[in-house]
């Protein structure tokens, strides 16, 4: 029997990213994108956020929060372009742009979290 295609790996990544995105991303966007700018809740101070982000657990959490959802986006978005817009002839280009973008974002967030 032939070896299972590597698509399984990308699907697992997509699923993991989907779970993280479903559980944690909404509250982050709600707080920093809506509640604080609109004044519904007090904006946390720079010092407090920095100290929070510097703890080892927070660094790992934030890295996972950035990395996995990006790969979730990469998988889903490239399928949407393929099916929705039927741009089949650009399949390899789309794949590289999506997963490349996700990888870039992951590396960037990793770098920032190491330096904070």
């Amino acid at each position: 029997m032939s070896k299972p295609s590597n698509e399984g790996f990308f699907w697992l990544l997509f699923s993991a990213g989907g779970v993280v995105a479903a559980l944690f991303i909404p509250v982050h966007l709600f707080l920093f994108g809506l509640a604080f700018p609109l004044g519904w809740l007090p904006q946390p101070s720079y010092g407090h956020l920095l100290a929070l982000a510097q703890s080892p657990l927070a660094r790992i959490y934030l890295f996972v929060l950035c990395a996995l959802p990006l790969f979730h986006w990469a998988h889903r978005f490239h399928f949407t372009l393929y099916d929705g817009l039927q741009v089949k002839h650009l399949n390899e280009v789309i794949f590289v742009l999506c997963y490349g973008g996700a990888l870039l974002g992951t590396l960037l967030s990793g770098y920032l979290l190491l330096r904070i």
Partner: protein
Amino acid sequence: MADKIVLEIARYAPEKDEEPSFQSFEVPFRKEWVVLDALNHIKDKIDGSLTYRWSCRMGVCGSCGMMVNGEPKLTCATFLSSYGNGAKVRVEPLRYFPVIRDLVTALSDFLVKLQSVKPWLIRKDEPPLSAGEFLQTPEQLDLYKQFSMCINCTLCYAACPVVGLEPSFVGPAAIALAQRYNLDNRDQGAQERLGLLAHPEGIWGCTFVGECTRVCPKHVDPAGAIQQYKLKAALEWVKSFVLPRGHDDESKEVRS
């Protein structure tokens, strides 16, 4: 004043038409009639050239699938009364299939796809007759029973956008059928089918739109079958990296 309902039916005669056109027929609106009754009335009393498939007229043969007002339906199970007295009902052949004539679609591709998943019990070893029958408990039957209820009506293919966009996609019914055998404790062919289906025209072509499950008249839930299959295939991929070669967990059947 008798109640009436208008059916707008797609007509296509390959010997004279370039493409389908619609023809309207007025039929009596009877409370107990289904769309198939209306079609039969038209063929009997109005236009004998109307061409369509039907057989059991009770929702078990899967022959009478058509698009009714844009929805894939079994016409023997779709009541005229759900459209109302005086309504216009559009009847077309099932979407995403080539049309042979009027409401008849070409199913040869579908049959090839069904066959391609090896929908039979695959055995690696053939025990002798003296060993007795294969035993299967009700719990073991329950594992795959839902996926065995498919009547091959192809409503799911008409609902699935991937079938329309990617004609080589093997499709919901075929994958559900493969799962029916994979989950059967008498079968030893799961690995073989995995090799046949774990690729972009197999399970990985599915984007979980979920329309197939919604339109299925037998509640087979092909979308569920496919997602479960994806999980299994993904875990197999992980196993192929982590575990040594030649692992085999096929023999699950119970014998007396």
